[in-house]
């Protein structure tokens, strides 16, 4: 149980290389980011399928849009913070508004860069990209989701943003699980409490669930890998049978998974106790990804304790 897998970022790079070997139309665009994106090998094996623009993320997104308009299947790969903050207007206009089916891959997302600080964190990406028409947003939880989303992205005909962390992730799903962009995966089905999470924090929800089980509490656990388009149905179904709902995300508490859940709960008149866990609006404490998530009440122990307390 709880096998520790590889970093999702490595799975991304391996899967993309496999796909690109089969399909010469796939191009990768990097901005001095192939090392961080685990694409050094890709560059060696398929030098004609990688385009390097230097440290110029806006240029990366614009060129990706142009390559896509020229009929290529493009993966633009750069640290999530720079890709989605610095290049936001290129994403808004050249990718989303123009509806170019580019895959934007945000690497070392969330607070993966730990002590490198706020300039390197992307806890704004869900919030800002959610407001753009056309684009889908995915945050894979484990190696399975990390690889499936890349396979699905090759034939995806709309703009897509995928964010990856760089720490090894515990395997959560079995290989037979059905993966579809826009359809959440129910990790376990229980009773009175639902833990809904996305990306690298799903494993924290799963571990919290194990603690809760030792106390005789069986939570519903959802991996909401797609933030947009959101799987409203699963959330409504789980919320309706729960007394407590907790959302957990490596993102600002504003504009991400939690606020989307609040939106659905309120608009569907569902009455339950609800708590959003994420990064609050403050000068973020310095530390590793794990320490920072723990600090902001997202350790499995704290999630379990909060669950038990809210259940009363």
């Amino acid at each position, binding site marked *: 149980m709880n096998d520790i897998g590889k970093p999702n970022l490595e799975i991304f790079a391996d899967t993309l290389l496999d796909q690109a070997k089969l399909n010469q139309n796939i191009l990768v665009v990097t901005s*001095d980011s192939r090392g*961080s994106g685990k694409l050094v090998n890709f560059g060696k094996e398929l030098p004609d399928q990688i385009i390097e623009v*230097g*440290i*110029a993320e806006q*240029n990366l997104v614009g060129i990706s849009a142009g390559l896509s308009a020229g009929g290529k299947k493009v993966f633009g790969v750069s640290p999530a913070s720079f890709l989605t903050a610095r290049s936001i207007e290129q994403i808004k206009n050249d990718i989303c508004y123009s509806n170019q089916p580019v895959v934007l891959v945000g690497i070392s997302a969330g607070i993966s860069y730990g002590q490198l600080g*706020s300039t*390197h964190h992307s806890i704004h990406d869900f919030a800002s990209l959610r407001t753009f028409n056309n684009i889908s947003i995915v945050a894979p939880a484990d190696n399975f989701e990390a690889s499936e989303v890349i396979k699905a992205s090759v034939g995806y005909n709309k703009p897509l943003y995928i964010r990856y962390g760089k720490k090894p992730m515990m395997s959560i799903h079995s290989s037979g699980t059905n993966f579809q962009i826009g359809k959440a995966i129910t990790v376990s089905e229980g009773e009175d409490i639902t833990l809904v999470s996305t990306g690298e924090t799903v494993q924290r929800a799963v571990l919290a669930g194990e603690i809760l089980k030792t106390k005789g509490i069986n939570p519903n656990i959802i991996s909401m890998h797609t933030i947009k388009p959101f799987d409203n149905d699963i959330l409504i179904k789980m919320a309706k049978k729960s007394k407590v709902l907790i959302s957990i995300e490596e993102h600002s508490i504003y504009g991400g998974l939690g606020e989307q859940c609040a939106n659905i709960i309120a608009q569907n008149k569902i009455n339950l106790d609800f708590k959003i866990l994420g990064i609050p609006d403050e*000068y973020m404490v310095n*530390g590793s990804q794990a320490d920072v998530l723990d600090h902001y009440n997202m350790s499995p122990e704290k999630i379990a304790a909060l669950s038990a307390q809210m259940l009363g």
Partner: protein
Amino acid sequence: MSVDQKFLEKKSLEYRRTIIEIIYNSGAGHTGGSLSCIDILNVLYNGILEITPNNFSTIERNNYIHSKGHSVEALYTVLCDVGFFKKEDLKTLNAFDSHFIGHPTRKVSGVEHNTGALGHGLSVAVGLALAKKKDKSKKKVFALLGDGELSEGSVWEACTSASKYQLDNLIVVVDRNHLQITGKTEDVNPIEPLDEKFKSFGFDVEFVNGNNIIELLEIFQKVPFTADKPSAIIANTIKGCGISFIENEISWHHKVPTDEEYGKAIKELDEKLIKYE
């Protein structure tokens, strides 16, 4: 050898020792880029800028913007030595809840501007230089940029404003170490002819050996090179300068020394330091 030269050269060796020490102890850091720019920071803070803890909160002084923010260990090392905080504080680098994080933040005394995302510093420096012009101040603004950083288009947007407003109080220093993360700048995204580029953007340009104390002192004392024009100094440096096995090695962009490498690096520096006793 003048006293000043000896004094500053010794400081550069001590600074290199501190950079290696804090990167080794904290388990993270941008080794190559900190070592390539440390002589520039040494000369600026000890010979040119006159920025001190006493005048730091005032407006009427020179400014320094560390646009290549990842080389933060060089900046912390020099700020510590010129009195902004105690050496003890540096031991908290990268520790949980410390303000000493992996990129410059104004939570650390002596840091002028939060940097870390490349390509921002020059626009901020242009703003500072413009403010000084409005105040009829004679003070100057220095900004240090990486050569890889020059691929960011915003750098060149800033250059157009600098020349439009004739900011001869603005000095861009390029840490021209010819390397970035992926490899050589000229392979990743060529920026040559760099002097011609700056010239065509309205700058007056000079080259300097950016790891030579005397050359750096001389060039910084000469700015502005031409009245009414911003200055660009292309400082030819060696990435990882001063430690034989780190010099010009791509992998040392953000590598941390092993125990053995740490011992070797300190030994190399100490052998050079002895000559200055």
